[in-house]
């Protein structure tokens, strides 16, 4: 297997050095660009979603090998459940960053998920999420497609969320009275202000909370010119310690849920899909070796799947290899790209702000490389 160090890795250092503070100036007349984050909770296995062509994978996972793969490049294949993703890839609207992760190596779901959303280094050390901070810095609005507000979207500004209900609410005068009981400036008061100022399209009563149906709602809101710029989905169930399966099985089913969301977003967004970026986020990958229960244990490096018109078709990796001395702690695919560089670049691209500005306001000016040009068509 010969996967070489991609050129952009060599290039980014200079871009970072050249970057100087640039203020939040948005190019006039640019079309609205949308950023969608799909959180895959439980530890999405990059080696199942986008398996490298490497014999070591076959011997490490004899019972859970993905066989009916779809071809991406001479070095990487795609899981058969990711049908929409494959169509997008062929249309030049999908890409992958592989052997990547957030800088967290301790294998706890809860610490890992907290850090993937906060973007920090100390579990539970931040009360805001990187996307919440990014939206604040760019003065934009986001929408979570879930009942609770994910940490990812939290910031000083309260963002909106959506989840269908069939129940009806009090009328506006009562809402104003109730809001009056909440202390000025409290999170409760801010949430209430969001409720009071909702667009009609978000007040329609509905019952379905199927992830794919929720994607339709997200698409409607994102497609509106004055709608939110960001949507966040939450998918769990990737923690496949048992019965992970290869072509079929638990991991494949979850990937297929993800695939259906991007399918619905593509259909629902219509032309706006060309100005959209859909990225996955997970807390870690899974160990190379299968365990005794035809599953895998918590690992480290994984893949980020990227879909949408703003994505360049490529697999970006500084591939570390699967020989035992190349594995992280002798067990896991290593991570050679800080996933936060991908997210910071995505925000810079979608929010029309300079990368360095975004990095300063969301990731404390840590030395993350600018991957905007390498990954996205902007």
């Amino acid at each position, binding site marked *: 297997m010969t996967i070489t160090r991609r050129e952009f890795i060599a290039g980014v250092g200079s871009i970072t050095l050249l970057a100087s503070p640039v203020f939040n100036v948005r190019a006039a007349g640019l079309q609205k660009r949308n950023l969608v984050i799909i959180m895959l909770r439980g530890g999405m296995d990059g080696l199942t979603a986008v398996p490298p062509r490497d014999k070591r994978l076959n011997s490490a996972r*004899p019972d859970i090998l993905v066989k009916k793969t779809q071809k991406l490049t001479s070095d990487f294949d795609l899981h058969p459940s990711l049908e929409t993703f494959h169509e997008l890839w062929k249309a030049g609207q999908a890409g992958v960053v592989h052997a990547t992760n957030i800088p967290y190596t301790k294998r*706890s779901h809860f610490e890992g998920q907290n850090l993937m959303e906060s973007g920090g280094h100390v579990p539970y050390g931040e009360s805001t999420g990187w996307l919440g901070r990014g939206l604040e810095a760019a003065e934009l609005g986001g929408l979570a497609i879930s009942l609770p507000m994910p940490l990812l979207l939290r910031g000083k500004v*309260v963002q909106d969320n959506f989840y269908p209900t069939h129940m009806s*609410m009090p009328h506006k005068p009562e809402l104003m009275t109730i809001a009056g009981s909440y202390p000025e400036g409290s999170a409760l008061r801010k*949430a209430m202000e969001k409720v009071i100022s909702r667009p009609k399209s978000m007040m329609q009563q509905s019952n379905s909370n199927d992830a794919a149906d929720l994607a339709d709602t997200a698409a409607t809101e994102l497609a509106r010119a004055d709608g939110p710029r960001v949507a966040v989905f939450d998918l769990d169930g990737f923690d496949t310690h048992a019965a992970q399966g290869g072509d079929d099985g638990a991991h494949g089913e979850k990937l297929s849920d993800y695939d259906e969301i991007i399918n619905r977003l593509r259909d629902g967004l219509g032309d706006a899909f060309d100005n959209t970026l859909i990225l996955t986020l997970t807390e870690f990958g899974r160990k190379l070796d299968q365990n005794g229960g035809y*599953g895998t244990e918590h690992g480290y490096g994984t893949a980020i799947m990227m879909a949408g018109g703003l994505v360049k078709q490529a697999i970006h990796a500084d591939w570390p290899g699967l020989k035992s001395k190349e594995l992280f702690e002798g067990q896991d695919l290593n991570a050679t790209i800080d996933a936060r560089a991908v997210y910071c670049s995505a925000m810079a691209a979608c929010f029309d702000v300079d990368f360095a500005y975004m990095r300063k306001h969301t990731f404390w000016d840590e030395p993350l490389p600018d991957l905007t040009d390498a990954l996205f068509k902007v």
Partner: protein
Amino acid sequence: MKRDFFRKVGFGIAPGESVPTDPLAWAQAQMDTVPDLSWKGDIPTGEALMDHYAHWVYTDRKVLRKKHKKDRKAYKAAKEQLRYKTGERFFENLELAIRHDAALNSGAPVFERLWFFWANHFAITDKDFMPEFTTGAYHRDVLRQHMTGSFVDLTKAATTSWAMIHNLDNSESIGPNSENGRRRRERGKVATVNENHARELMELHTVSPAAGYTQDDVIALSYVMAGWEHKHTKKRQECNPVHFNQRNHQPGTHTVLGKQYKQRGLNSSNKLLDAIEDLCAHPDCRRFIALKLCRHFICDQPTDAMMQPIILAWEDSDGDLPTVHKALLQVAWDYTGIEQKFQNPEVWFLQMVNMAGMAWPPSPKTMTYTFKNKPRRDQRKPESMLRELGLLPYRPPQPNGFSDMSSDWLSPELLIRRLAFSSESGTRISANLDFDALIDSNFDNADEIKAYLSPFTTRFGRAETLFPSYWMLMA
């Protein structure tokens, strides 16, 4: 009088209920015995529910899928009938009715709040068909029954329960050097431990990451635990009791957090129980539990001053739960009126129902099921309602249970649910409900709340504005 205390540690005061004159003593007196469940209808045993579960999974996986493998429609129809026959759509609703009836009617609401707490601490996630059949019984039989003993006994019971062993995959764990492990490897198969349960036992149930354990500690504890499993059989699938299987156990002495575990007696089952003793005696364990208790009942960011009396009570009593609970209640009492906690949706709902005297849960008569048809809408009300509120207690998505941080319960949509439920409650409360009396019994700032409600003269307007008000959401 600190009337907010009744909501801080309980479900408030119901219409016509006399207000205890010594609230702290009233609360602490509830800690010494396990109250009987107040539900007057049928309470199925854990074994009976496991039989239903076994029937459901065996018939679905081994009979229907084969029989209808070429006809998806016929398979779906047959599976739907099987749901009714086994109670797959019913038992979760019954368990919720039993749980809510206890909260409202057992006579020991503070005990019930702590029951909710421990059920969430030793959380069983939404996996396989556990919420549909067995999680409620695990809360009743395993956790509730151990709440008047020591924390270590509660932990041993939870850790070795079928629910936890299955939920955290310990039956999939095979010591690589165990008898079965060696045999598997000789045949070219993989034999490794499953780290899931060992990791959560330390991280979530006992010492927390503050103890500084390493990946080596996690693996060593997985070795200690290997062999604690349930059989997987054709007829009952995963529904078989937990036992210790020496043939899957990793032999030898294992070191976890600097302590060694070796076999005493005829088999190695003692190693896990010995390890749990040490984990529960670890200083980071009592600190972690004190933090979680304070975070649930007092405020999001508990101080050392809040946690210290609980930690001391733990040290003096070797983790005796009634003693620890009473220390917590003393701290909650001391901080009533000083610190307020945002109430989670289920607790808030039960407080509303209790304080307004609404009919809830559905009656035992309503919850009588024939196992022939789809449960009626009124029989499915507990589940559909809690799903709408955003907290299904038998379905935490992850093993760390539901959060106790206010920010995790605060979003525009979650607020909309509180508003909608309050709005709907007007139609469910008595026309004679005395709002002034409700406010006098339950709030320390009664005058302020009465002034706030004064523009609203109907019970609809009053319910709709009182229940989502700041003072009701916080306690």
